[in-house]
């Protein structure tokens, strides 16, 4: 044993080229991470696909049932409500937050006075814990005399609103703190993007007599294209995966009233960890994966175009 190691060491010294030695170091550095990614990322992904083809309540053995979970999913009216809610979060949340954050960044970029302080105000909500803020906003939405918003409405002589107790207002009410918390990040990224627009281009355009809108449309926005694509994708993924706010703001974490604010991730959570229908929940995660993959693919295409 001992002589063997010594022998192999001397072989090491004599027969391995520099390139081979470097390769050995590389694989040594990569060994643990590769095992990690296989065990904690790739294997579970494949496992999820497999579980989605079974009927399984964790306690008993898995029973292979083919595509039955998917058939059940797509014929379940609740699932379609959930899916449409999920996209409603996206379709409302993404444009509103991007337009707001761009407007703020574009204007804030021009000021030096109080810049750091104002920027900090917009950014601070990004550092908060979603769970904590969900409860703060939940309190704001209570009816008078408890909730802040309804107290203000009454002070202004207006009628109270239902907010979280209404099937129509619950979803936007849950969405508001999500937009609020994410705004600061988008503003920072937009401001960094605005800095990278060459000042000489802007000067030249002004000398040519271009108005503010024209400069914005012809020079600033085209330059910001990669930033915009990046933020669209990041926020799209974020809104499609909304969970913390809904779970903490709706009664018993149900995404109510009557599923009106329930998004896909909450549905997955409830199916898996309240109903213990692992196969059914896994099928939903596959649907989520498919949606996110399509969006990433579109992003790739859009990035290439520029």
């Amino acid at each position, binding site marked *: 044993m001992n002589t063997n190691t010594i022998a192999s060491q001397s072989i090491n010294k004599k027969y391995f080229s520099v390139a081979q030695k470097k390769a050995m170091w590389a694989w040594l550095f990569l060994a643990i*991470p590769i095992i990690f990614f296989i065990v*904690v990322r790739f294997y579970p992904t494949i496992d999820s696909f497999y579980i989605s083809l079974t009927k399984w309540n964790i306690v008993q053995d898995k029973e292979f049932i083919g595509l039955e979970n998917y058939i059940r999913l797509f014929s379940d009216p609740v699932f379609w409500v959930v899916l449409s809610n999920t996209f409603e979060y996206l379709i409302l949340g993404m444009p509103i937050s991007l337009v707001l954050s761009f407007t703020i960044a574009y204007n804030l970029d021009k000021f030096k006075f109080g810049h750091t302080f*104002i920027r900090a*105000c917009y950014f601070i909500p990004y550092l908060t814990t979603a769970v*904590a803020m969900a409860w703060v906003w939940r309190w704001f939405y209570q009816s008078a005399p408890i909730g802040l918003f309804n107290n203000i409405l009454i002070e202004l002589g207006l009628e109270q609103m239902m907010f979280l107790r209404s099937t129509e207002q619950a979803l936007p009410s849950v969405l508001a703190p999500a937009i609020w918390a994410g705004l600061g990040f988008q503003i920072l990224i937009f401001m960094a993007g605005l800095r990278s627009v060459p000042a000489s281009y802007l000067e030249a355009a002004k000398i040519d007599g271009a108005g503010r809108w024209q400069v914005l449309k012809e020079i600033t926005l085209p330059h910001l294209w990669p930033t915009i694509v990046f933020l669209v994708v990041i926020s799209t993924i974020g809104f499609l995966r909304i969970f913390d706010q809904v779970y903490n703001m709706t009664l018993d974490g149900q995404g109510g009233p009557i599923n009106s604010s329930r998004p896909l991730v909450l549905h997955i959570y409830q199916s898996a960890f309240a109903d213990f229908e692992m196969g059914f929940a896994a099928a939903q995660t596959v649907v989520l994966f498919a949606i996110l993959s399509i969006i990433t693919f579109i992003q790739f295409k859009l990035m290439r175009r520029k």
Partner: protein
Amino acid sequence: MSNLPTNMKAVPDMKKLLTWTVLCIGGLAMIMPLIFMFITSLKVGEEVYTLSFWPDEPTLENYIYLFENSNFLIWFFNSFVVAIVTTISVLFFDSLVGYTLCKFEFKGKKLVFVAILSTLLIPTEMLVIPWYLMVKDFGWLDTYWGIMFPGMISGFGVFLMKQFFETVPDDYIHAARIDGLNEFQIWWKVAMPMVGPALSALAIFTFLGNWTAFLWPMIVSNDPELYTVPVGLASFSGEFNTDWELIMAGASVATIPTLIVFILLQKYIVRGVVMSGLKG
């Protein structure tokens, strides 16, 4: 001569002042929820439900009740341990892998890189069910390890670090090799000190992500002693559903420490978020 330009600018300046004021009001509106949270946490009794800005008699009663009747201190400790250990692990492994994929040439390098990059496409939600089964099978339920293990290495960080190691000149690495340092020493002593800003950016991102994480820690911990702050706060708030002043105290405890850290390190945090946002 100096008067003329100012006079000419008088009208646009009014417009500027208006924009600035609107921005200011908007900024204050952004932090209003946090201010209301904090102020209400200092109120008791009837006063909780008034719009009064500052309580007549600010009190720490809610905080005292909170710490006496819940495990908040333990949850705080748990969150801290989880976030710190995960961050250290991510910094170590992600920079090591990023460096290897940047500065080494070997067969299979591209495959490894693409494979790691592709893990960014997999949403966490797809993995929680298999992770939960792993945790159950290995007996990791209600352990720190159970909460931490999925995040010990991140594909995003590998990608980020690889990009930043591009800025380390190869000459330095060759010189260190001639000086007799082995590859591990070269990485640790020569390359790592040159990517400090990137490391701090990754650290901020990882710490914040773990500090606020909710879904997975909630799934994996049943024992209230093992809750992290967000999980504990959710269960505490559910229990004291209508005692809003207590919930506000809990939310303050969960939020204010990060805000203090932010005020102290604002420059680095802003730079870190921008850096990881743009390169990532």
